[in-house]
């Protein structure tokens, strides 16, 4: 298994890593049993994601996809962020090994979870807009990925 240079770059120098104290949307997906948890923080102003950050427990691909996902939505509208797909994250990283595709799915889900939280805080039911997100489940016994 070999990672692309871009994956290694985002792993070694992750963008937007850490907590965002004034975030108004926080989402977490994955579980520790399966070996990856992604937590996304977004700050939305006038429907624009003005700031974003992440924290990830996981493999190199999990860290790189989180980092790339934050770059892809930073400065974008909420509607554009909703359209972010795992495929776009993978392409931006020049591809992922087949066994790591689930990491990009998790990154997409993490963004959606943060957006759902943002809508909820606005008093809006996120499900019709964002769809159903598998929220973080600490004791998830179901099969990983």
């Amino acid at each position, binding site marked *: 298994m070999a*990672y692309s240079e871009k994956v*290694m770059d985002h*792993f*070694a120098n*992750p963008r937007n*890593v*850490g907590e965002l104290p004034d975030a108004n949307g926080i989402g*977490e997906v994955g579980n*520790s*049993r*399966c*070996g*990856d*948890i*992604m*937590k996304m923080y977004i700050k939305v102003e006038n429907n624009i994601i003005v700031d974003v950050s*992440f*924290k*990830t*427990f*996981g*493999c*190199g*691909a*999990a*860290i790189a996809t989180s980092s790339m996902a934050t770059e892809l939505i930073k400065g974008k509208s909420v509607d554009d962020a909703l359209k972010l797909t795992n495929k776009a994250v993978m392409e931006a990283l020049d591809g992922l090994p087949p*066994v790591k595709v689930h990491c990009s799915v998790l990154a997409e889900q993490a963004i959606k979870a943060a957006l759902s939280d943002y809508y909820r805080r606005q008093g809006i039911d996120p499900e019709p807009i964002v769809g159903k997100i598998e929220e973080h489940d600490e004791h998830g016994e179901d*099969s*990983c*990925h």
Partner: protein
Amino acid sequence: MKKIYADNAATTRLSKEALDAMMPYLTDYYGNPSSLYSLGVKSRQAVENARNIIAECLNADPKEIFFLSGGSEADNWAIKGAAHLSAKKGKKHIITSKFEHHAVLHTLDSLKKEGFEVTYLDVHENGIIRPEELENAIREDTALVTIMFANNEIGTIQPVKEIGEICKKHKVIFHTDAVQAVGAIPVDVKEIGCDLLSISAHKFHGPKGVGAIFMRKGLRLPNLIDGGAQESGRRAGTENIAGVVGMSVALKHSCEVMAERNARLEKMRDRLIDGLLKIDRSIINGDRVHRLPGNVNMCFHGLEGESLLLSLDLKGVSASSGSACTSGSLDPSHVLLAIGLPHEVAHGSLRLSFSDENTEEDIDYLLEIIPPIVTRLRSMSPLWEKIIKNS
């Protein structure tokens, strides 16, 4: 940048002595050992000389050593052979441990499909089976006990001599996968009392793709590879002459330097373990005393092993982990789960394994770079955040 190879349990560098001894058989002496002319005789002599050397290193008779392709083939032959031989007498029960190499576990899976029954002994928190539990598990229809000499991930050494005595007492065939032990620690087949023992050359600075099996005199397992009359008609295929020559030279050297090397490696190992244990919420996996001299296996809570390996690689260090991400499966290492680690802890494992090529300076460097890597990965881990909050 400094380069450290710390994955000698995965494979080792071919030694210069082994390579030099092999070269003539890859160039000038290419004869088939089965041929009668002098070029063939030269090859035959090389193979038999290698057999004598390996037998001597293991305190075996040369007639008890058979060459083959490596550890996996040796395990397959020993287990399938012993199982099928015993099945003729109505014995279809096999005892093993929960943390064997997959060459053993998956071979047993295939036998289970044929109707064999397998008992998996617990390896407990320290990664060592308990002989009394083995004795209790033996039944009238037990065909075979297969328990590894030393574990490939956590390096724990099993009480093989006691296992051998129990098997002898109950007249059960005893196979031990000694792939991690041969060349690393003293292995004496008479002392162990095993009937079958698996060897792989590339674990002790020999070449890849070659190994051997020790099969006690009087025990004739059905063949795994049928064909020509090589290896006394027990294992077909033209001999890997250069391979067996390289294996014998490498093993002889390993055994000659063993005492001095192991004293040095144990000191290095213990210093590294003590140093890494100073990291908050770090644990050592497996018994600290009954352990291969070159094996360090730790878990660091709140981080994932593959990201640790990548970080180490960026610093020039080759190491290994039992995390799901590196095993190619969805679960972390079965070895770490067998010693009772929860999944999330097992994901954060690191194995560093050393050989005579490693130095005290390597340990200094590892102790310098690992703590900041752990801190960095934990600082971006939501799991670590939770661990700290809940403590």
